[in-house]
Protein backbone atom coordinates (compact mmCIF):
# COMPACT_ATOMS: atom_id res chain seq x y z
CA UNK A 1 0.00 0.00 0.00
CA UNK A 2 3.01 2.26 0.36
CA UNK A 3 4.26 2.02 -3.25
CA UNK A 4 3.73 5.03 -5.51
CA UNK A 5 0.87 4.47 -7.95
CA UNK A 6 1.95 3.88 -11.53
CA UNK A 7 2.10 7.09 -13.54
CA UNK A 8 0.73 6.98 -17.08
CA UNK A 9 1.95 9.08 -20.04
CA UNK A 10 1.59 12.82 -19.55
CA UNK A 11 -0.70 15.12 -21.52
CA UNK A 12 1.39 16.71 -24.31
CA UNK A 13 1.53 20.18 -22.76
CA UNK A 14 2.56 18.74 -19.38
CA UNK A 15 5.27 16.69 -21.11
CA UNK A 16 6.68 19.88 -22.64
CA UNK A 17 6.63 21.55 -19.22
CA UNK A 18 8.33 18.54 -17.70
CA UNK A 19 11.05 18.72 -20.34
CA UNK A 20 11.92 22.24 -19.20
CA UNK A 21 12.53 21.11 -15.61
CA UNK A 22 15.90 19.80 -14.51
CA UNK A 23 16.05 16.71 -12.26
CA UNK A 24 16.45 17.03 -8.47
CA UNK A 25 15.04 20.56 -8.45
CA UNK A 26 12.38 22.17 -6.22
CA UNK A 27 9.12 22.67 -8.09
CA UNK A 28 5.85 24.39 -7.15
CA UNK A 29 2.93 23.65 -9.47
CA UNK A 30 0.26 26.33 -9.09
CA UNK A 31 -3.12 24.93 -10.11
CA UNK A 32 -1.80 21.38 -10.03
CA UNK A 33 -5.21 19.70 -10.53
CA UNK A 34 -5.09 16.00 -9.75
CA UNK A 35 -1.28 16.11 -9.42
CA UNK A 36 -0.42 14.35 -12.71
CA UNK A 37 2.56 16.60 -13.48
CA UNK A 38 3.83 16.64 -9.88
CA UNK A 39 3.60 12.88 -9.51
CA UNK A 40 5.46 12.44 -12.81
CA UNK A 41 8.18 14.91 -11.79
CA UNK A 42 8.55 13.33 -8.35
CA UNK A 43 8.87 9.86 -9.77
CA UNK A 44 10.80 10.43 -12.99
CA UNK A 45 12.92 13.44 -12.09
CA UNK A 46 13.24 13.12 -8.35
CA UNK A 47 12.02 16.69 -7.82
CA UNK A 48 10.85 18.08 -4.48
CA UNK A 49 7.27 18.46 -5.72
CA UNK A 50 4.82 20.90 -4.11
CA UNK A 51 1.49 22.14 -5.37
CA UNK A 52 -1.38 24.57 -4.91
CA UNK A 53 -4.88 23.62 -6.02
CA UNK A 54 -8.26 25.28 -5.61
CA UNK A 55 -10.59 22.27 -5.58
CA UNK A 56 -11.09 19.92 -2.62
CA UNK A 57 -11.18 16.97 -5.06
CA UNK A 58 -7.83 17.94 -6.57
CA UNK A 59 -6.10 18.48 -3.21
CA UNK A 60 -7.54 15.23 -1.88
CA UNK A 61 -6.29 13.34 -4.95
CA UNK A 62 -2.82 14.88 -4.66
CA UNK A 63 -2.37 14.34 -0.92
CA UNK A 64 -3.66 10.80 -1.35
CA UNK A 65 -0.79 10.30 -3.81
CA UNK A 66 1.61 11.45 -1.10
CA UNK A 67 2.21 14.83 -2.75
CA UNK A 68 2.54 18.02 -0.70
CA UNK A 69 -0.30 20.20 -1.91
CA UNK A 70 -2.13 23.06 -0.25
CA UNK A 71 -5.62 24.24 -1.01
CA UNK A 72 -5.44 27.80 -2.24
CA UNK A 73 -5.16 29.99 -5.32
CA UNK A 74 -2.57 31.92 -7.24
CA UNK A 75 -3.96 35.34 -6.33
CA UNK A 76 -3.88 34.95 -2.55
CA UNK A 77 -1.62 32.06 -1.56
CA UNK A 78 1.69 32.78 -3.26
CA UNK A 79 2.69 36.00 -1.54
CA UNK A 80 4.12 34.39 1.62
CA UNK A 81 6.77 32.27 -0.07
CA UNK A 82 10.29 33.65 0.28
CA UNK A 83 12.27 34.77 -2.75
CA UNK A 84 13.82 31.86 -4.67
CA UNK A 85 11.95 29.29 -2.56
CA UNK A 86 11.75 27.10 -5.67
CA UNK A 87 13.83 26.39 -8.75
CA UNK A 88 10.70 26.32 -10.92
CA UNK A 89 7.19 27.60 -10.38
CA UNK A 90 4.74 26.16 -12.88
CA UNK A 91 1.50 27.88 -13.79
CA UNK A 92 -0.25 25.55 -16.20
CA UNK A 93 -3.35 26.92 -17.95
CA UNK A 94 -4.24 28.96 -14.90
CA UNK A 95 -2.97 32.48 -15.67
CA UNK A 96 -6.19 33.37 -17.52
CA UNK A 97 -8.27 32.50 -14.43
CA UNK A 98 -6.36 34.76 -12.02
CA UNK A 99 -7.71 38.13 -10.91
CA UNK A 100 -4.41 39.84 -11.45
CA UNK A 101 -2.18 38.03 -13.98
CA UNK A 102 0.46 40.74 -13.78
CA UNK A 103 0.89 40.43 -10.00
CA UNK A 104 0.81 36.67 -10.24
CA UNK A 105 3.51 36.60 -12.92
CA UNK A 106 5.69 38.94 -10.88
CA UNK A 107 5.26 36.69 -7.85
CA UNK A 108 6.07 33.55 -9.86
CA UNK A 109 9.45 34.85 -10.96
CA UNK A 110 10.18 36.12 -7.45
CA UNK A 111 9.49 32.91 -5.54
CA UNK A 112 10.97 30.74 -8.30
CA UNK A 113 14.30 31.10 -10.09
CA UNK A 114 12.34 30.19 -13.20
CA UNK A 115 8.66 30.34 -14.06
CA UNK A 116 7.00 27.99 -16.53
CA UNK A 117 3.71 29.41 -17.79
CA UNK A 118 1.33 27.75 -20.22
CA UNK A 119 -1.94 29.12 -21.55
CA UNK A 120 -4.47 28.77 -24.34
CA UNK A 121 -3.50 31.25 -27.06
CA UNK A 122 -6.48 33.45 -27.85
CA UNK A 123 -4.66 34.67 -30.97
CA UNK A 124 -4.94 31.32 -32.76
CA UNK A 125 -6.42 31.58 -36.25
CA UNK A 126 -9.42 29.41 -35.38
CA UNK A 127 -10.33 31.75 -32.54
CA UNK A 128 -9.99 34.79 -34.74
CA UNK A 129 -11.99 33.15 -37.53
CA UNK A 130 -14.66 31.98 -35.12
CA UNK A 131 -15.26 35.52 -33.87
CA UNK A 132 -15.26 36.91 -37.40
CA UNK A 133 -17.62 34.34 -38.91
CA UNK A 134 -19.95 33.69 -35.94
CA UNK A 135 -19.90 37.06 -34.23
CA UNK A 136 -19.80 35.35 -30.84
CA UNK A 137 -17.07 35.17 -28.22
CA UNK A 138 -14.98 32.13 -29.16
CA UNK A 139 -14.78 29.31 -26.65
CA UNK A 140 -11.50 27.38 -26.81
CA UNK A 141 -11.81 23.67 -27.65
CA UNK A 142 -12.52 21.51 -24.62
CA UNK A 143 -13.88 24.41 -22.60
CA UNK A 144 -17.35 23.64 -21.26
CA UNK A 145 -18.05 27.22 -20.19
CA UNK A 146 -19.76 30.08 -22.00
CA UNK A 147 -18.64 33.73 -21.92
CA UNK A 148 -20.86 34.45 -18.88
CA UNK A 149 -19.80 31.65 -16.56
CA UNK A 150 -16.22 30.98 -17.62
CA UNK A 151 -13.55 31.22 -14.89
CA UNK A 152 -11.23 32.42 -17.66
CA UNK A 153 -11.49 36.13 -17.08
CA UNK A 154 -8.11 37.24 -18.47
CA UNK A 155 -7.58 35.50 -21.79
CA UNK A 156 -4.51 36.56 -23.74
CA UNK A 157 -2.57 35.89 -26.91
CA UNK A 158 1.09 34.98 -27.36
CA UNK A 159 1.86 38.59 -28.26
CA UNK A 160 0.00 39.91 -25.21
CA UNK A 161 2.01 37.61 -22.95
CA UNK A 162 5.33 38.58 -24.53
CA UNK A 163 4.40 42.27 -24.06
CA UNK A 164 3.60 41.71 -20.37
CA UNK A 165 6.86 39.84 -19.84
CA UNK A 166 8.79 42.71 -21.41
CA UNK A 167 6.92 45.24 -19.31
CA UNK A 168 7.92 43.32 -16.20
CA UNK A 169 11.51 43.07 -17.39
CA UNK A 170 11.45 39.29 -17.64
CA UNK A 171 13.78 37.26 -19.82
CA UNK A 172 12.09 34.58 -21.92
CA UNK A 173 14.41 31.58 -22.07
CA UNK A 174 12.18 29.43 -24.19
CA UNK A 175 8.81 29.64 -25.91
CA UNK A 176 6.93 26.73 -27.47
CA UNK A 177 3.60 26.49 -29.19
CA UNK A 178 1.48 23.39 -29.47
CA UNK A 179 -1.43 22.65 -31.78
CA UNK A 180 -4.20 20.07 -31.57
CA UNK A 181 -2.10 17.56 -33.48
CA UNK A 182 0.64 17.87 -30.85
CA UNK A 183 2.88 19.73 -33.33
CA UNK A 184 5.46 21.71 -31.36
CA UNK A 185 7.02 24.91 -32.70
CA UNK A 186 9.57 27.32 -31.25
CA UNK A 187 8.12 30.75 -30.62
CA UNK A 188 10.38 33.53 -31.81
CA UNK A 189 9.73 36.68 -29.85
CA UNK A 190 7.43 39.00 -31.74
CA UNK A 191 6.51 36.30 -34.23
CA UNK A 192 3.04 36.69 -35.65
CA UNK A 193 3.16 33.17 -37.09
CA UNK A 194 3.37 31.51 -33.66
CA UNK A 195 0.48 33.64 -32.52
CA UNK A 196 -1.60 32.39 -35.46
CA UNK A 197 -0.64 28.74 -35.41
CA UNK A 198 -0.19 27.83 -31.74
CA UNK A 199 -3.29 26.72 -29.85
CA UNK A 200 -1.34 26.55 -26.62
CA UNK A 201 1.80 28.40 -25.60
CA UNK A 202 4.41 27.42 -23.02
CA UNK A 203 7.06 29.85 -21.80
CA UNK A 204 10.10 29.40 -19.61
CA UNK A 205 11.18 32.72 -18.14
CA UNK A 206 13.07 34.35 -15.29
CA UNK A 207 13.60 37.80 -13.82
CA UNK A 208 16.71 39.62 -14.92
Amino acid at each position, binding site marked *: *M*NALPTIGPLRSDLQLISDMITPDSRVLDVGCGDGALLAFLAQEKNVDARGIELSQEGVNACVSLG*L*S*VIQGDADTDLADYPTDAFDYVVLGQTLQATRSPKDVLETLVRIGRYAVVSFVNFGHWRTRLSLMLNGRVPVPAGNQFGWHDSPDIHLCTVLDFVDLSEELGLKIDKGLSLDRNDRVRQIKTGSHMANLRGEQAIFLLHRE
Partner: protein
Amino acid sequence: MTDSTVTHSPMDHGELPGHQVELGADAPLRLDSGAVLGPYTIAYQTYGTLNADKSNAILVCHALTGDQYPAEAHPVTGKDGWWDLMIGAGKVIDTDQFFVICTNVLGGCMGTSGPSSIDPSTGKPYGLDFPVITIGDMVRAQAMLIDHLGINKLFCVIGGSMGAMQVLEWASKYGDRLYAAVPIAGAPRHSAQNIAFHEVGRQAIMADPDWCQGNYIPEGKRPRRGLAVARMEAHITYLSEPALHRKFGRRLQEREKVTYGFDADFEVESYLRHQGSTFVERFDANSYLYITRAMDYFDLAAEHNGVLADAFRDTQVRFCVVSFSSDWLYPTIESRAVVHALNAVAANVSFLEVQTDKGHDAFLLDEPVLHETLSGFIDGAIRHSGLSL
Protein backbone atom coordinates in the same frame (compact mmCIF):
# COMPACT_ATOMS: atom_id res chain seq x y z
CA MET B 1 10.65 6.86 38.15
CA THR B 2 8.08 4.15 38.59
CA ASP B 3 5.76 2.54 36.10
CA SER B 4 2.50 1.10 37.27
CA THR B 5 -1.03 0.57 36.14
CA VAL B 6 -3.42 3.35 37.04
CA THR B 7 -4.58 2.55 40.53
CA HIS B 8 -5.57 5.95 41.80
CA SER B 9 -7.89 8.36 40.15
CA PRO B 10 -8.85 11.62 41.74
CA MET B 11 -12.23 11.31 40.06
CA ASP B 12 -12.81 8.01 41.86
CA HIS B 13 -13.23 6.17 38.59
CA GLY B 14 -11.63 3.14 40.21
CA GLU B 15 -8.84 1.36 38.43
CA LEU B 16 -8.29 2.73 34.93
CA PRO B 17 -6.76 0.84 32.01
CA GLY B 18 -3.43 1.94 30.60
CA HIS B 19 -0.22 3.14 32.16
CA GLN B 20 0.85 5.70 34.67
CA VAL B 21 4.34 6.98 35.26
CA GLU B 22 5.75 9.38 37.82
CA LEU B 23 8.26 11.78 36.31
CA GLY B 24 10.22 14.81 37.36
CA ALA B 25 11.26 13.68 40.84
CA ASP B 26 14.87 14.47 39.92
CA ALA B 27 14.18 17.18 37.32
CA PRO B 28 10.92 18.99 37.98
CA LEU B 29 8.95 20.59 35.17
CA ARG B 30 9.64 24.30 34.76
CA LEU B 31 6.28 25.74 33.80
CA ASP B 32 5.69 28.79 31.60
CA SER B 33 4.21 30.57 34.62
CA GLY B 34 7.55 30.29 36.39
CA ALA B 35 6.22 27.69 38.83
CA VAL B 36 7.93 24.35 39.22
CA LEU B 37 6.04 21.05 39.23
CA GLY B 38 7.56 17.76 40.30
CA PRO B 39 7.17 14.96 40.75
CA TYR B 40 4.18 14.71 38.44
CA THR B 41 2.22 11.81 37.03
CA ILE B 42 1.44 11.14 33.38
CA ALA B 43 -1.33 8.68 32.55
CA TYR B 44 -1.16 7.31 29.03
CA GLN B 45 -2.45 4.54 26.84
CA THR B 46 -0.75 2.78 23.93
CA TYR B 47 -1.93 0.67 21.01
CA GLY B 48 0.18 -1.44 18.64
CA THR B 49 3.81 -2.43 19.09
CA LEU B 50 6.92 -0.29 19.22
CA ASN B 51 9.41 -1.60 16.62
CA ALA B 52 13.03 -2.46 17.39
CA ASP B 53 14.51 0.92 16.43
CA LYS B 54 11.60 2.79 18.03
CA SER B 55 10.82 4.64 14.80
CA ASN B 56 7.10 3.84 14.38
CA ALA B 57 5.58 5.85 17.25
CA ILE B 58 2.65 8.20 16.65
CA LEU B 59 1.61 10.57 19.43
CA VAL B 60 -2.11 11.35 19.43
CA CYS B 61 -3.04 14.57 21.25
CA HIS B 62 -6.53 14.92 22.70
CA ALA B 63 -8.87 17.90 22.75
CA LEU B 64 -10.17 19.89 25.75
CA THR B 65 -12.43 17.20 27.15
CA GLY B 66 -10.77 14.16 25.57
CA ASP B 67 -8.50 11.70 27.32
CA GLN B 68 -6.00 8.92 26.72
CA TYR B 69 -8.63 6.46 25.48
CA PRO B 70 -9.14 7.29 21.77
CA ALA B 71 -9.42 3.73 20.53
CA GLU B 72 -11.19 1.64 23.14
CA ALA B 73 -14.42 1.69 25.08
CA HIS B 74 -14.27 4.53 27.58
CA PRO B 75 -13.59 3.14 31.07
CA VAL B 76 -16.15 5.45 32.70
CA THR B 77 -18.90 5.91 30.11
CA GLY B 78 -18.49 2.68 28.13
CA LYS B 79 -18.85 4.68 24.90
CA ASP B 80 -16.64 4.07 21.84
CA GLY B 81 -13.21 5.69 21.93
CA TRP B 82 -13.30 9.30 20.72
CA TRP B 83 -11.14 8.49 17.67
CA ASP B 84 -12.23 4.91 17.06
CA LEU B 85 -12.92 5.84 13.43
CA MET B 86 -9.29 6.90 12.95
CA ILE B 87 -7.19 4.54 15.07
CA GLY B 88 -7.12 0.74 14.87
CA ALA B 89 -6.02 -2.25 12.85
CA GLY B 90 -6.26 -1.34 9.15
CA LYS B 91 -7.55 2.16 9.91
CA VAL B 92 -5.98 5.52 9.00
CA ILE B 93 -3.64 5.30 11.99
CA ASP B 94 -2.98 1.61 11.58
CA THR B 95 -2.12 -0.08 14.86
CA ASP B 96 -0.75 -3.04 12.87
CA GLN B 97 1.96 -0.66 11.64
CA PHE B 98 2.32 1.99 14.29
CA PHE B 99 2.83 2.28 18.02
CA VAL B 100 0.20 4.79 19.08
CA ILE B 101 0.67 6.79 22.28
CA CYS B 102 -1.98 9.01 23.83
CA THR B 103 -1.42 10.87 27.09
CA ASN B 104 -3.92 12.51 29.37
CA VAL B 105 -2.79 16.16 29.29
CA LEU B 106 -1.24 17.93 32.24
CA GLY B 107 -4.09 19.49 34.21
CA GLY B 108 -6.43 16.66 33.19
CA CYS B 109 -8.53 14.41 35.37
CA MET B 110 -7.95 10.89 34.06
CA GLY B 111 -4.80 10.05 35.97
CA THR B 112 -2.32 12.74 34.88
CA SER B 113 -1.45 15.37 37.48
CA GLY B 114 -4.14 18.03 37.64
CA PRO B 115 -6.04 20.14 40.15
CA SER B 116 -7.88 17.12 41.55
CA SER B 117 -4.65 15.18 42.16
CA ILE B 118 -3.22 14.89 45.64
CA ASP B 119 -0.63 17.56 46.42
CA PRO B 120 2.24 15.55 47.95
CA SER B 121 3.18 18.50 50.17
CA THR B 122 -0.25 18.63 51.85
CA GLY B 123 -1.78 15.21 51.24
CA LYS B 124 -4.93 16.97 49.98
CA PRO B 125 -6.20 17.65 46.47
CA TYR B 126 -4.41 20.62 44.87
CA GLY B 127 -7.58 22.50 43.97
CA LEU B 128 -6.60 26.01 42.91
CA ASP B 129 -3.11 25.50 44.36
CA PHE B 130 -2.29 23.53 41.22
CA PRO B 131 -0.10 25.80 39.08
CA VAL B 132 -1.70 27.33 35.97
CA ILE B 133 -0.43 25.42 32.97
CA THR B 134 -0.08 26.15 29.27
CA ILE B 135 -0.16 24.16 26.02
CA GLY B 136 3.64 24.47 26.13
CA ASP B 137 3.68 22.82 29.57
CA MET B 138 1.45 19.97 28.36
CA VAL B 139 3.83 19.32 25.48
CA ARG B 140 6.90 19.60 27.72
CA ALA B 141 5.41 16.90 29.94
CA GLN B 142 4.66 14.73 26.89
CA ALA B 143 8.25 15.13 25.72
CA MET B 144 9.42 13.89 29.12
CA LEU B 145 7.24 10.80 28.67
CA ILE B 146 8.65 10.23 25.17
CA ASP B 147 12.15 10.44 26.70
CA HIS B 148 11.07 7.98 29.37
CA LEU B 149 9.88 5.57 26.67
CA GLY B 150 13.31 5.84 25.01
CA ILE B 151 11.87 7.23 21.78
CA ASN B 152 14.18 9.70 20.09
CA LYS B 153 11.95 10.72 17.19
CA LEU B 154 8.20 10.36 16.77
CA PHE B 155 7.02 9.42 13.31
CA CYS B 156 4.03 11.70 13.66
CA VAL B 157 2.19 13.92 16.12
CA ILE B 158 -1.50 14.31 15.31
CA GLY B 159 -4.51 15.89 16.98
CA GLY B 160 -7.65 17.95 16.52
CA SER B 161 -8.74 21.18 18.22
CA MET B 162 -6.61 21.60 21.37
CA GLY B 163 -4.79 18.53 20.08
CA ALA B 164 -3.83 20.58 17.02
CA MET B 165 -2.38 23.28 19.29
CA GLN B 166 -0.19 20.65 20.92
CA VAL B 167 0.87 19.42 17.47
CA LEU B 168 1.91 22.96 16.47
CA GLU B 169 3.75 23.39 19.78
CA TRP B 170 5.57 20.08 19.20
CA ALA B 171 6.60 21.12 15.69
CA SER B 172 7.76 24.52 16.90
CA LYS B 173 9.65 23.48 20.04
CA TYR B 174 10.78 19.94 19.28
CA GLY B 175 11.05 20.03 15.48
CA ASP B 176 13.90 17.53 15.44
CA ARG B 177 11.88 15.01 17.43
CA LEU B 178 9.05 14.41 14.96
CA TYR B 179 8.94 13.59 11.26
CA ALA B 180 5.35 14.60 10.48
CA ALA B 181 2.76 16.89 12.07
CA VAL B 182 -1.00 16.83 11.49
CA PRO B 183 -2.88 19.71 13.14
CA ILE B 184 -6.62 19.32 12.43
CA ALA B 185 -9.28 21.99 13.08
CA GLY B 186 -6.84 24.04 15.13
CA ALA B 187 -5.45 27.53 15.43
CA PRO B 188 -2.08 29.13 16.12
CA ARG B 189 -3.66 31.22 18.89
CA HIS B 190 -6.92 31.66 20.73
CA SER B 191 -9.04 34.44 19.30
CA ALA B 192 -11.03 36.91 21.41
CA GLN B 193 -14.16 34.91 20.58
CA ASN B 194 -12.52 31.65 21.71
CA ILE B 195 -11.48 33.26 25.00
CA ALA B 196 -14.95 34.74 25.43
CA PHE B 197 -16.67 31.37 25.09
CA HIS B 198 -14.28 29.82 27.59
CA GLU B 199 -14.83 32.63 30.03
CA VAL B 200 -18.58 32.01 29.98
CA GLY B 201 -17.94 28.35 30.80
CA ARG B 202 -15.59 29.19 33.64
CA GLN B 203 -18.01 31.73 35.08
CA ALA B 204 -20.77 29.10 35.03
CA ILE B 205 -18.58 26.76 37.09
CA MET B 206 -17.43 29.42 39.52
CA ALA B 207 -21.00 30.69 39.99
CA ASP B 208 -22.09 27.26 41.22
CA PRO B 209 -22.14 27.39 45.06
CA ASP B 210 -20.95 23.78 45.08
CA TRP B 211 -17.70 24.91 43.47
CA CYS B 212 -16.67 26.11 46.99
CA GLN B 213 -13.93 28.42 45.68
CA GLY B 214 -12.35 25.40 44.01
CA ASN B 215 -12.36 23.40 47.23
CA TYR B 216 -15.31 21.13 46.47
CA ILE B 217 -13.50 17.79 46.89
CA PRO B 218 -12.66 18.24 50.62
CA GLU B 219 -16.16 19.71 51.06
CA GLY B 220 -17.66 16.54 49.60
CA LYS B 221 -19.41 18.46 46.81
CA ARG B 222 -19.22 18.73 43.01
CA PRO B 223 -20.25 21.81 40.98
CA ARG B 224 -22.37 19.70 38.65
CA ARG B 225 -24.76 22.40 37.49
CA GLY B 226 -22.00 24.87 36.67
CA LEU B 227 -19.92 22.32 34.80
CA ALA B 228 -22.98 21.06 32.92
CA VAL B 229 -23.83 24.60 31.78
CA ALA B 230 -20.22 25.11 30.68
CA ARG B 231 -20.43 21.92 28.65
CA MET B 232 -23.79 22.86 27.12
CA GLU B 233 -22.49 26.21 26.00
CA ALA B 234 -19.24 24.79 24.62
CA HIS B 235 -21.07 22.00 22.83
CA ILE B 236 -22.97 24.53 20.71
CA THR B 237 -19.65 25.90 19.46
CA TYR B 238 -18.57 22.42 18.35
CA LEU B 239 -21.52 22.11 15.97
CA SER B 240 -22.83 24.39 13.26
CA GLU B 241 -26.15 26.07 12.68
CA PRO B 242 -27.03 23.78 9.71
CA ALA B 243 -25.93 20.67 11.66
CA LEU B 244 -28.05 21.65 14.67
CA HIS B 245 -31.00 22.40 12.46
CA ARG B 246 -30.67 19.13 10.56
CA LYS B 247 -30.42 17.16 13.80
CA PHE B 248 -33.20 18.86 15.76
CA GLY B 249 -34.96 21.55 13.80
CA ARG B 250 -37.73 22.96 16.03
CA ARG B 251 -38.96 19.50 16.96
CA LEU B 252 -40.53 19.08 20.38
CA GLN B 253 -39.28 16.61 22.97
CA GLU B 254 -41.84 13.83 23.53
CA ARG B 255 -44.79 16.19 23.43
CA GLU B 256 -47.36 17.43 20.96
CA LYS B 257 -47.21 21.11 21.77
CA VAL B 258 -45.20 23.61 23.79
CA THR B 259 -45.96 23.71 27.53
CA TYR B 260 -45.68 27.46 28.12
CA GLY B 261 -43.07 26.71 30.79
CA PHE B 262 -39.35 26.18 31.13
CA ASP B 263 -39.19 22.44 30.73
CA ALA B 264 -37.09 21.10 27.88
CA ASP B 265 -39.86 21.54 25.30
CA PHE B 266 -37.46 21.34 22.36
CA GLU B 267 -35.34 18.35 21.40
CA VAL B 268 -32.27 20.56 21.18
CA GLU B 269 -32.73 21.60 24.83
CA SER B 270 -33.12 18.02 25.94
CA TYR B 271 -30.03 17.05 23.95
CA LEU B 272 -27.90 19.78 25.54
CA ARG B 273 -29.13 18.94 29.04
CA HIS B 274 -28.16 15.33 28.40
CA GLN B 275 -24.72 16.39 27.11
CA GLY B 276 -24.21 18.46 30.23
CA SER B 277 -25.36 15.87 32.76
CA THR B 278 -23.34 12.98 31.27
CA PHE B 279 -20.23 15.14 30.98
CA VAL B 280 -20.06 15.87 34.71
CA GLU B 281 -19.82 12.14 35.45
CA ARG B 282 -16.46 11.91 33.74
CA PHE B 283 -14.92 15.35 34.00
CA ASP B 284 -13.56 17.50 36.79
CA ALA B 285 -14.69 21.13 37.03
CA ASN B 286 -11.30 22.49 38.07
CA SER B 287 -9.62 20.62 35.20
CA TYR B 288 -12.08 22.42 32.93
CA LEU B 289 -10.90 25.75 34.34
CA TYR B 290 -7.21 24.90 33.98
CA ILE B 291 -7.37 23.41 30.49
CA THR B 292 -9.54 26.18 29.03
CA ARG B 293 -7.06 28.67 30.53
CA ALA B 294 -4.15 26.87 28.88
CA MET B 295 -5.91 27.17 25.52
CA ASP B 296 -6.65 30.87 26.08
CA TYR B 297 -2.99 31.55 26.74
CA PHE B 298 -1.91 29.81 23.54
CA ASP B 299 -0.38 32.21 21.01
CA LEU B 300 2.47 30.69 19.05
CA ALA B 301 3.40 33.90 17.23
CA ALA B 302 3.59 35.98 20.41
CA GLU B 303 6.77 34.19 21.48
CA HIS B 304 8.30 35.24 18.15
CA ASN B 305 7.50 38.95 18.17
CA GLY B 306 4.21 38.30 16.40
CA VAL B 307 5.82 36.56 13.42
CA LEU B 308 4.24 33.12 13.23
CA ALA B 309 6.65 31.97 10.53
CA ASP B 310 9.52 32.34 12.99
CA ALA B 311 7.95 29.59 15.10
CA PHE B 312 8.76 27.20 12.26
CA ARG B 313 11.98 28.61 10.74
CA ASP B 314 14.20 25.90 9.19
CA THR B 315 11.67 23.22 10.09
CA GLN B 316 12.21 19.83 8.49
CA VAL B 317 8.81 18.58 9.64
CA ARG B 318 6.31 17.40 7.00
CA PHE B 319 2.94 19.04 7.73
CA CYS B 320 -0.63 18.19 6.82
CA VAL B 321 -3.04 20.91 7.97
CA VAL B 322 -6.79 20.23 7.79
CA SER B 323 -9.75 22.52 8.49
CA PHE B 324 -13.52 22.21 8.08
CA SER B 325 -15.61 24.67 6.10
CA SER B 326 -18.36 24.98 8.74
CA ASP B 327 -16.04 25.17 11.78
CA TRP B 328 -16.74 28.57 13.33
CA LEU B 329 -14.79 27.84 16.53
CA TYR B 330 -11.45 27.50 14.72
CA PRO B 331 -12.38 28.65 11.22
CA THR B 332 -10.33 27.85 8.13
CA ILE B 333 -8.68 31.27 8.26
CA GLU B 334 -6.79 30.11 11.38
CA SER B 335 -5.43 27.02 9.62
CA ARG B 336 -4.61 29.13 6.60
CA ALA B 337 -2.54 31.43 8.81
CA VAL B 338 -0.49 28.40 9.82
CA VAL B 339 -0.14 27.35 6.18
CA HIS B 340 1.00 30.82 5.11
CA ALA B 341 3.53 30.88 7.94
CA LEU B 342 4.82 27.49 6.83
CA ASN B 343 4.98 28.70 3.21
CA ALA B 344 7.02 31.66 4.37
CA VAL B 345 9.71 29.28 5.61
CA ALA B 346 9.28 27.02 2.54
CA ALA B 347 8.19 24.16 4.76
CA ASN B 348 6.77 20.96 3.33
CA VAL B 349 3.05 21.37 3.88
CA SER B 350 -0.22 20.00 2.60
CA PHE B 351 -3.48 21.74 3.42
CA LEU B 352 -7.09 20.81 2.84
CA GLU B 353 -10.35 22.49 3.83
CA VAL B 354 -12.92 19.70 4.01
CA GLN B 355 -16.36 20.79 2.81
CA THR B 356 -18.83 19.73 5.49
CA ASP B 357 -21.70 21.19 7.51
CA LYS B 358 -20.77 19.26 10.67
CA GLY B 359 -18.82 22.09 12.27
CA HIS B 360 -15.77 21.84 14.53
CA ASP B 361 -16.56 18.31 15.72
CA ALA B 362 -16.19 17.02 12.15
CA PHE B 363 -12.68 15.86 13.04
CA LEU B 364 -14.23 13.22 15.31
CA LEU B 365 -16.86 12.11 12.80
CA ASP B 366 -17.09 9.96 9.71
CA GLU B 367 -15.65 12.32 7.07
CA PRO B 368 -14.39 10.16 4.19
CA VAL B 369 -12.44 13.02 2.59
CA LEU B 370 -10.56 13.60 5.86
CA HIS B 371 -9.77 9.93 6.23
CA GLU B 372 -8.64 9.50 2.58
CA THR B 373 -6.44 12.56 2.79
CA LEU B 374 -4.77 11.51 6.02
CA SER B 375 -4.22 7.96 4.74
CA GLY B 376 -2.51 9.35 1.65
CA PHE B 377 -0.46 11.77 3.72
CA ILE B 378 0.70 9.05 6.12
CA ASP B 379 1.56 6.71 3.22
CA GLY B 380 3.50 9.51 1.56
CA ALA B 381 5.30 10.28 4.82
CA ILE B 382 6.23 6.60 5.20
CA ARG B 383 7.70 6.61 1.68
CA HIS B 384 9.59 9.87 2.07
CA SER B 385 10.96 9.05 5.52
CA GLY B 386 12.11 5.60 4.43
CA LEU B 387 10.39 4.15 7.49
CA SER B 388 10.38 0.36 7.20
CA LEU B 389 7.39 -1.26 8.82
